[in-house]
């Protein structure tokens, strides 16, 4: 990261965790980003969804579009079990397609993917349509919590606050 993004700052709150701050400017708007990554312990056996870098946009804050068919803020996680931070965190890869593993460098996966996400976000803000690649997860049975379904009806298809924790420990 340091050699590729020398302008980004890096803090190391503990031995296994690093937090980077830097700017991404896909077009005319510059976004202040925070990326947190915790190096997994070898025997941890967690899924990439649990281990993924947590990418946040600090400024300007992401703005929802309530009632939008893509969701009030598409392609984000509202929270993550590894942190108490409020999020939202950008959803940048499809775990089913093995698009990211802890062996990948952040500099050529997470960061460029985040910049492309921001570009898609800008177009979505203007048109209400997500033109980038994207996938909305829906379970085969769609057996969701009724409260979640009600929230979805209110906010749009992808705006539901997490009500039940996903078992991120499954490999």
């Amino acid at each position, binding site marked *: 990261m340091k*050699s*590729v993004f*020398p302008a980004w700052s890096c803090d190391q709150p503990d031995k296994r965790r690093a937090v980077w701050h830097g*700017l991404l*400017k*896909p*077009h*005319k708007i510059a976004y202040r980003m925070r990326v947190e990554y915790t190096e997994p312990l070898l025997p941890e056996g967690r899924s990439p969804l649990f281990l993924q870098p947590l990418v946040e946009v600090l400024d300007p804050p992401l703005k929802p579009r309530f009632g939008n068919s893509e*969701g009030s803020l*598409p*392609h*984000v*996680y*509202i*929270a993550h079990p590894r942190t108490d931070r409020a999020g*939202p965190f*950008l*959803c*940048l*890869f*499809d*775990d089913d397609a093995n*698009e*990211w593993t802890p062996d990948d*460098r952040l500099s*050529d*996966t997470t*960061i*460029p*993917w985040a*910049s*492309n*996400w*921001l*570009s*898609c976000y*800008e*177009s979505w803000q*203007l*048109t209400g*349509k*997500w*033109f*980038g*690649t*994207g*996938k*909305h*997860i*829906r*379970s085969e049975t769609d057996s*969701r*919590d009724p409260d979640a379904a009600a929230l979805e009806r209110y906010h749009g*298809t*992808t705006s*539901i*606050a*997490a009500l*039940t924790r*996903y078992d991120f420990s499954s490999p």
Partner: protein
Amino acid sequence: MNVRTNFEDYARSLDIDPIEAALMDVARAIQITQSMHSEAEAHYRGLASHVDRPGSPFEDLVAEIYASGSFAIHAPTRSRIKRDQHDVDAVIELSIPPGSDPQWVLQTLYKAIKGDPGSKYHGYLIEKNSRCVTVTYPDGVTVDLMPVVRLLGTPERVASLFHYKPETGDQYHKEINPKGFADHFNENVETNAVFQDRFDARRFLVDGETYETMAKRMASEASSRTAIKADTQPMPVHVPLDQKSPRVVALQLIKRFRDKRFRKHDDHSGKRKPPSIIMAAIALEAGPVQDNLVDEVVALATCMRRRIQNAERSLRLLDIRNPAHTPDVFTDRWPEQRSDQQLWARDLQTLIDRLQNLQHVGFDPAVILSTFDDLFGEKAGEAALRAYHDARTAQLEYGALGMKPSGEFKPATPALSAGVAAASGLITPARANTNMGGTVPDDNCW
């Protein structure tokens, strides 16, 4: 490695300025497809046979039918981006005396098309205009059928039209040569190989197929609908002018801009639009074509504007004639007064200013959306943004897009491995990704 693969590589790594690419995307969105072209041709040929049918007032009097206007110079555009609607101008040559009464000719053509109750066109919307009869098909396509009589002893296809305006009682004949103009335009308009390659590369990047592939696919789909043609040999693909001449594509965009101005702007309401044929004639005088479409639109608009300024300097109306037959005055009905040409000159200046501002500002989704929606209407800006992201996705999947450390993406030579390419300084993503998110609360993703 075959030629096709090389073209695909070229397309994926082509570094087209994003403003230029966006204007190309709008241009493609307003062009009609080859199947729409064939369908339109079938429409006006069917009309000619109908007018010529036994029992018609013009039975056996149809000598010829041919396309005119934009259709004949390969510059037709959709009247609606999202629908397959477009307008076709056709000339129907009748074997009647050239001095025939214009009111009678137009009324008789109307009757011949309308036919008896139960006949094919009887239920269609058919309207008489001052020089033509307009037939609107159920799918929204309109054909303007202009009756003419060929004038003997004149150069090829010089004819006389019939003008009758019931509101004023005004009627006359006018010598024209639309076929001569179309042939002259098609022979003289300049094409540009650099533009053609880039325009087709952009199509491939966004739509996943080249013009040739698309034309073959459509021909195959059409032949599978008419099973009898299964044995016919595939025809070589004819690449029309609106794929290889930046001037013709620029004309299409300026026509689209004109239609938007005269449809949506209050100060244009009720006014006659500058006819396409005048723009096409000026286009032939606009000097060498540019490689770049934005520059070409600006150059063509500037040339049109300059012609108006020249007329204004001597307090005269614009005078544009058919270069294939100078007695045919294209400006006989527009401009009616100097304020008409002044209005269009101001419109052209707006077009020039907005495009040059885009070039100056660079690609910004908000500016693209507002500029293109304002200039070309009907969600042209959204079409451009969608194409921008489709192209970017295709390039990312192929590893032909790199990111500057600032976060801006640029086309890059496909990398052998991810990381920073020393030569370009671009960061090549390790692979394409999918932005996730969804409706399953269990996975903590919204």
